[in-house]
């Protein structure tokens, strides 16, 4: 049975983003999908049009990892960092920094996996250097962002207007 869990996203304190998600698979498999390059490159992609030609992971404490994504139009985006903590199969802590970062400083990502009856609960936390950096990331996740924001604005105003208008000027 295919189980696509609900992704919950919250902010904690001034500088953290916390995501939780349940996967219908044992923890050992989820851990592999987060640590083996041949698996990571199959899912850690961007929106349609992006591939991941570079995915190198030196999976040991102090070891580096390097990701590069490429768009069909030739645009490239790279990021990487260093593993700080590895506890098989439950915890990975690593730094992360984009080559052409749009937010200041380096971030620290933590992945925690908890198995419950054959399913695995993931908690993924990213700690940024400042609240400004976190806001820059939330406002513009990678290449999507400003344009999409403005597109959604039109939709939002339409739906808000429909529910808020006291005298109907809209037709259903």
């Amino acid at each position, binding site marked *: 049975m*295919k*189980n*696509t*869990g609900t*992704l919950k*996203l919250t*902010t904690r304190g001034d500088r953290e*983003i916390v*995501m939780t*998600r349940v*996967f*219908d*698979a*044992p923890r050992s*498999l*989820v851990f*592999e*999908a987060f640590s083996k390059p041949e*698996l990571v490159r*199959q*899912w*850690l*992609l*961007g*929106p349609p049009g992006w591939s991941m030609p570079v995915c190198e992971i030196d999976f040991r404490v102090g070891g580096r990892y390097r990701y590069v994504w490429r768009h069909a139009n030739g645009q490239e985006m790279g990021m990487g960092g260093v593993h700080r903590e590895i506890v098989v199969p439950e915890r990975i802590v690593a730094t992360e920094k984009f080559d052409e970062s749009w937010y200041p400083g380096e971030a620290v990502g933590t992945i925690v996996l908890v198995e419950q009856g054959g399913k695995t609960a993931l908690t993924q936390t990213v700690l940024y250097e400042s*609240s*400004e950096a976190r*806001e820059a*990331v*939330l*406002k*513009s*996740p*990678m290449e*999507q*962002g*400003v344009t*999409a*924001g*403005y597109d*959604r*604005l*039109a939709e*939002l*105003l*339409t739906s*808000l*207007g*429909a*529910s*808020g*208008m*006291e*005298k109907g*000027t809209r037709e259903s």
Partner: protein
Amino acid sequence: MKNSQRLDATFAALADPTRRAILARLASGEASVMELTKPFAMTQPAISKHLKVLERAGLISRGRDAQRRPRRLEARPLAEATGWLEGYRQFWDGRFQRLDALLEELKTNQLKTNEKRRTRSKR
């Protein structure tokens, strides 16, 4: 104002249905206070109060015409408010849905491997 304070102000201003309706009206072009009052069963001073809240949140501004003082929509704070958490969530949601598919594949492969092992050990 700090970014987070501005977002607070934006969300507070959006919490009211009359103010949302005013924004929806302004999305189709600027309008005077009188024009904005018309569709509502409210007095002009009541509408003016809502306009002040929207103005403080930076969601609307006043046009140049000194007589009409038309209000117009300022798109940026709204775009920030709608874009922020949801865009990030959708981005990761897409990735995790791909991970679901991959995990299904890995589970199937693992089952096959285990079966092979079992048959071999029976021999």
